[in-house]
């Protein structure tokens, strides 16, 4: 017993190392699984508050750029208003519209923490459960797709950005409706470029074509901009094209985002979950 004690105290550094290293690894692996330990991350109250304070100061630096992008968006929205269209008919009629129901509503949020230099990038926004945000909702910005909601606390939520190796977004080419999935982070760590996969060989893809969301998933409405084709080609004998997409959103200057709330999401998921009768 005494010898054992001597042995332990002689090589104590090694044993401490084993203990603490395994604690970290356990934390790391548990955190990586589907059930994330959601206490120690930046949707936590204290950390979120700290990030919000520094972001409040930093936001002044980007004020001009943000104003420009908001003004541009205003202009676009103004163009979609009824008053912007010329009407041919002389008689005006009031129509009670019972065909169209609202499907998407948007919750505006401010980015309080952002990263683009890591392998798995996340964004923290200052909206949470209180404001109606739920796990898995889509997030967009005035210029295009941003990502998916990952964790939600009462006042903050973290967003798994497009620049995250686990993110898959259903995208299609505007010009010919071919659809595939958009990925980032496989042999490509440029924050302005993503890869579009699973588009078959026979589809004609040329440089400059627009990539938009397909609307097949319940997260994003159809037609939200993602980017434009930068380069295309076949990789060594595969039957799918490898398309590089120049992203339209500059993640490094992101400040305001909209969280997409699909009011019919539950209904669509429910009907898609029904298995065919055998």
């Amino acid at each position, binding site marked *: 017993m005494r010898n054992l004690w001597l042995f332990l105290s002689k090589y104590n550094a090694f044993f*401490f190392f084993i203990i603490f290293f395994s604690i*970290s690894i356990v934390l*790391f692996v548990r955190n990586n699984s589907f059930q994330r330990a959601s206490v120690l991350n*930046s949707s936590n109250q204290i*950390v979120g508050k700290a990030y919000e304070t520094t972001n409040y100061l930093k936001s002044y630096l980007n004020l001009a750029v943000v104003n420009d992008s908001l003004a541009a968006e205003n202009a676009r929205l103004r163009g979609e208003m009824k008053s912007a269209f010329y009407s041919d008919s002389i008689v005006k009629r009031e129509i009670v519209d019972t065909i169209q129901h609202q499907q998407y509503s948007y919750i505006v949020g401010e980015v309080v923490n952002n*990263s683009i230099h*890591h392998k798995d990038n996340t964004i923290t926004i200052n909206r949470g459960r209180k404001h109606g945000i739920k796990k898995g909702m889509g997030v967009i910005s005035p210029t295009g797709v941003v990502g998916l909601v990952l964790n939600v606390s009462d006042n903050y939520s973290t967003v798994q950005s497009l620049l995250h190796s686990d993110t898959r977004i259903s995208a299609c080419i505007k010009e010919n409706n071919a659809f595939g999935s958009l990925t980032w982070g496989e042999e490509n760590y440029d924050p302005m470029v993503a890869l579009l996969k699973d588009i078959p060989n026979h589809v004609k893809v040329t440089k400059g074509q627009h990539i938009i969301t397909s609307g097949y998933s319940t997260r994003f409405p159809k037609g939200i901009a993602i980017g434009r084709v930068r380069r295309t080609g076949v990789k060594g004998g595969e039957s799918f094209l490898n398309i590089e997409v120049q992203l339209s959103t500059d993640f490094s200057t992101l400040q305001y985002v909209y969280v997409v709330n699909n009011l019919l999401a539950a209904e669509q998921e429910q009907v898609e979950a029904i298995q065919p009768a055998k």
Partner: protein
Amino acid sequence: MIRIIINNLIRFVVLVFIQVFLLKNIGYYNLATPFLYILFVLLLPFETPNILLFVLSFLLGLTIDTFYDTLGINAAATCVLAFVRIIFINLTVQRQGLETEPEPKLGIMGFRWFFFYTLILTLFHHLTLFLLETFTFSDIKYTLIRVVLSSIFTIVLVLLSEFIFFRKKER
């Protein structure tokens, strides 16, 4: 004694602050990202008991992890850092000298020793960090490039900050 504790406490807070609010936003694409916060572990006094050294390193890593949303990675890397530090100091520093040279600083230990000390500890720390982050050996070349470039970045920052607070031997 109390002065040493207060000094290290301030150093802890300041380094975490710099790392999280300044250096997190700096990087050459994904290739070189600096991790200056390890300076805290580098500068702990020689006489720190092993258990305290490990607890402090672990806490430091956990704090950084909380801000980076990468629970466990930095904590594991700082544990490796603490272990390598113990081995390195055991191999290179004589036991008798400990009373007169309380802290492993540039001004006290000399440039050559401090440079190798930083080099080896930083390399081990970054290697663990990036290998755990990618968690695969398939991209090993890319990961190694990241380790080397980030280490250079970190070492330059560590040496710079040591030169800024340079103090000659107080004897």
